[in-house]
């Protein structure tokens, strides 16, 4: 059963519609990731779920119970959740007192608080900062305090709003590690907002794409990343190759597409004449210096126009009569000595191609 069910939720700030007809189910124990660009309404949705605000219309069900728009019951339900805000927020108190806050507000016994707080501080690696004023911590440390302060409550639902935005890579890794640890324990349902695609991919079981106030797609991580249902989602999930094409043949599920500068083979059951977007993930495209005998159905000859490396990966852009982007490892860049103006063959499988129906504009 769904732990949280959002039904027909609308929200506005003044005249501006921020969320429009949101319908969402979040299952017990899952890690659900809301992804969407800045201003899409992620924070607003999390605030509504945490009962910090009341929606303009629509309902939220918690564990099957419709949450009232006001009253004491909201506090009781809110106490079963914890919310870590986007910017690390700490009270002007010691690290210990920060972390103990939620338990004190729930009137837990003193020795129990002491035991739990110390345990959590050790877990997040802040046991030596126990008596330090939390305001003197770095951004990453403050966010760990905020996370510990939420975790110590042992909430049924942990809401995280871009928990690693504005943090350095080291702190980001620590926070992600903690979140995936909580997720693995399985007692906590996690709802996390992020605009960081790899983070969503890495931490979530299920993803909801929020674009411009609307949930445009929900599904398993693989599903959303491999088969975005429209061009916008495709763009957003890092589908860098989106080429307009038309189906020219369909041979029992193997279609041929005319993309202007060539033909692409894909697995699909779209009929001949269908106008589609041809999507290929950059990491699914392999590069070689000669036309290889690989099993890939699609192979294009082109000239490299740009090589940009970030981290262990390198993004290679080439002109094959149409633009194609490939993501390759540093090792292959060195082996093939890939550089600007170099001529290469780009290959990808027919099963690596995802087609999206083009709607008449």
């Amino acid at each position: 059963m769904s732990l949280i069910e959002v039904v027909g939720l609308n929200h506005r700030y003044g005249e501006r519609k921020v969320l429009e007809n949101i319908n969402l189910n979040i299952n017990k124990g899952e890690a659900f990731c809301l992804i969407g660009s800045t201003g899409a309404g992620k924070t607003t949705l999390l605030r509504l779920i945490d009962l910090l605000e009341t929606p303009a219309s629509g309902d939220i069900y918690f564990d099957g119970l419709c949450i009232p728009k006001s009253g004491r019951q909201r506090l009781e339900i809110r106490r079963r959740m914890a919310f870590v805000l986007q910017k690390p927020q700490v009270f002007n108190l010691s690290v210990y007192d920060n972390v103990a806050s939620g338990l004190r507000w729930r009137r837990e016994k003193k020795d129990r608080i002491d035991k739990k707080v110390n345990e959590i501080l050790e877990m997040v690696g802040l046991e030596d900062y126990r008596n330090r004023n939390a305001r003197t911590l770095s951004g990453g440390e403050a966010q760990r305090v905020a996370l510990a302060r939420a975790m110590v409550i042992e909430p049924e639902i942990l809401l995280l709003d871009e928990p690693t935005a504005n943090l350095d890579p080291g702190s980001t890794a620590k926070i992600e590690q903690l979140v995936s640890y909580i997720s693995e324990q399985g007692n906590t349902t996690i709802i996390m907002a992020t605009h960081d695609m790899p983070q969503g991919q890495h931490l979530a079981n299920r993803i909801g794409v929020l674009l411009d106030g609307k949930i445009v797609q929900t599904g398993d991580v693989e599903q959303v990343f491999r088969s975005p249902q429209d061009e916008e989602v495709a763009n957003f999930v890092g589908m860098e190759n989106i080429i307009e094409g038309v189906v020219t043949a369909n041979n029992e599920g193997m279609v041929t597409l005319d993309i202007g500068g060539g033909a692409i083979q894909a697995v699909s059951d779209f009929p001949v004449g269908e106008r589609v977007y041809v999507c290929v993930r950059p990491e699914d495209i392999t590069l070689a210096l000669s036309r290889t005998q690989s099993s890939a159905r699609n192979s294009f000859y082109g000239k490299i126009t740009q090589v940009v490396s970030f981290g262990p990966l390198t993004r290679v852009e080439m002109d094959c009569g149409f633009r194609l982007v490939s993501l390759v490892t540093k090792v292959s860049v060195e082996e093939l000595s890939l550089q600007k103006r170099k001529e290469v063959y780009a290959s990808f499988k027919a099963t690596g191609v995802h087609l999206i129906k083009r709607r008449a504009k």
Partner: protein
Amino acid sequence: MAEIWQGFLKAIELIVSLDPEVMEIAGRSLRISVTSCLLASFICIPLGSLIHFHNFRGKRAVINIIQTFFSLPTVCVGLFVFVLFSRAGPLGGLGIMFTPTAMVIGQMILITPILLGLTISALSGVSKEIVDTAISLGASSFQTTVAVLREARYAVLAAVTMGFGRAIAEVGCAIMVGGNIRGFTRVITTAISLETSKGELELSIALGIILLFLALIVNVALNRL
């Protein structure tokens, strides 16, 4: 210049010798002002929180009026308390005119706007995110209020310090409703006023220095909290 120096030496002499009359006057000053400041704080800090955390029509106007009353002249408060508690006044039957009680009431009225206004602005200094953080961690509205007050504690303390300063330093109200009765309602400021009119400048200066000294002690004590 010589007079100030003389006054300074005299002040030290009076303090070191623990002059009974001076000690008595200073003690009364301190007692009355600490009492009025504490009582006013007990009313104004919760009331200021109530105003801050609730939205109602005319809230802006209320805050503007409170701030206007920061510059309430002490003699006006004196006049008001006088009218209220004098024999013929509506509360004349209580018989507290020309007593320390009347002085405490006068000072409370005098510093209420400052305590209220500065409490509200102290609370406004706490970010919306901190308030949301407390709520999201399961604080009830009362617990949230306490948490925000605690977050603003230094600014609230500054408000109390300001209130105390205004209370112990005022003379208009103390004379009008206390009457500067020796051994009963005479405080440092009313004593200075009297001694100066008698030409006893050295004693006046000594008393002025003692007043500042008292304020210093109270400030240091409050800042240690």
